């Protein structure tokens, strides 16, 4: 995962599939990044390079979303491919998480 702090927007770029075998490590990286940087005003999760997202990948996204909401940080999901958008619609993710193109 690559992190980029732009103004007060923390951009997190996922560079691999969001699947059961990667989410634990990605979550640890996320917590480490958050611990190192100043409290951002917003977090953008860029998933343009996540070819495959499984149920645990979805839980990873929701987990980050819930945590940012509790901390008053705005959250957005960016770089959704048509295939991933289809997945999000199928599982009604957009009802809970703001999904952008």
């Amino acid at each position, binding site marked *: 995962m690559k992190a980029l702090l732009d103004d007060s927007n923390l951009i997190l770029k996922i560079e691999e599939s969001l699947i059961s*075998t990667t989410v634990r490590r990605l979550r640890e990286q996320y917590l480490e990044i958050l611990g190192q940087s100043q409290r951002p005003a917003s977090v953008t999760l860029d998933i343009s390079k996540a070819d495959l997202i*499984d149920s645990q990948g979805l839980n990873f996204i929701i987990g980050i979303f819930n945590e940012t909401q509790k901390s008053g940080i705005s959250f957005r999901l960016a770089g959704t491919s048509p295939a991933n958008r289809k997945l999000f619609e199928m599982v009604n993710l957009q009802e809970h998480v703001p999904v952008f193109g």
Partner: protein
Amino acid sequence: MGLEAFFAPSMSSARQIVRDHQGENLVCAFISEDIEGKSGLECVAWLFQQDPNLSCIIVADKPDNTLLIKALRLGISDAVSPSVGGEELRRVLERAIYLTNYRRGSFIMSKRVRDASKTYRRLISERRHPSLSGFLPGYDKRLETQLFPALDAGGDMGNSFALDDHRLIMIGGDVSGHDLGCGFVSAFIMGIGRGMFNKGASTNEIRQSVNDFLVREWNPITPPGEIIVSMASCPVVLDFEKMHISCSCSGFPPPILCDDKLQITFLGSNNPPLGWFDKPLAPPIVTPLPETGCITMFSDGLTDLVKCGTPCTLAAADAFLGMSDEEAICSSLLEMQRDDIFVQRFAWSKGNDNGKKLLRPIYHCDCHGGDIDDIDQCQKRWHDAISTSLPGIARDRLNEILLCCREALLNALEHGCKCQCGQKCDITIACVGRNILRVRVHAPNASKTSCAEKEPGHIPFGQRIIKGYSDSYDYDLDNNILLLDFTLYSPAKENSPTNIHNLENRPNLP
């Protein structure tokens, strides 16, 4: 560039150079517009007669169009001015050398393919397949066979024939050794077996006769010090009148029966080959014949390949059956071949539905509880099996299917195997007709915990993914079997050719 240049001031000296260096690596020729004794174009034509793969470059100062067109039609690869030099000359030479080497490589390859195709056409003759048109008119059926010998002489054999009493016989066998003796025994037994079946002998009688021949007649005359001949054999009798399958597998990999629910049955176990003992030890296996099913039979040359990295025997069998002769020659699969490979598959389905229900199993594997950490490796094997068997499948659809398999198997490993290495579940994948991919995941010990009983707030994303992407979802709660169908070609987008990612380019389909 490590090149040696030869200069020919006249046509006769050009001939002399080519004669002197015939068989050596002449990689390109620069031919001037006019050469003493002939025109440059005549020289080009002569050079191509000597070596059609040689790159010829015409050298002309301000060449006219007519000359260039004629030269191009002869097959020159480039044209340069006499003052060419430096970087441009280097580029021209590099390209010419690349083209020559490429053409020579292709030439050798095509010759190999041509020669080998002749061999395979002889080996895989149509005579091997019985005419199935009059056999079982009320069924769709498809019979496929491939034999790839590793050496000139070998003992692998296969045959299939329909009998008048609604029986189909499939035989696979492998006589030990790779010499003319084993070839003779193989052919002899094949003929005897066929003849005895036609005369009404039972599988047991035939097996006993073959065993007697080896034990009492052939092996006693084996010269001292020579290894006795044994024969792995596997006759399968499909009786469509009594609706049962009988198989006597002796030392041969057990054939795999798959029914329309993708239930897999291995028609045999580890038994010694014929020729070792007075009495053959393998008891025949008799099992009901499903109305829709498929039997895949293969020799141990194929199972050896699976140890070399192909996803599973069914995947390798399907890959071989789908290969044309030319593809087989160039296939990286055969680079790993160490033994003869014989594959035979018969699929049948009651009714005349234009082959819509005919099965083509492409993957079956047991997964243990501990595999939950290796789920990515499992997924890679499904990916390889599906993309090899369905080379035209769209990437997104493949990912959707893989995702469903992943979710289903993770669920089976977690709830069925409790992530314990000693527990196992299995996954089977098959093509059904030309347009459906069917997946079965079986978790024998899964607990019947409904979603409602899980922790509050649990969102069953896995289930939503599986239901969302599959076109048919059937969960047998009593046996913990999940059966999913995936349509490969969407009827809603019928007019769009880009959406056809089905099995069209497979040559072995009904």
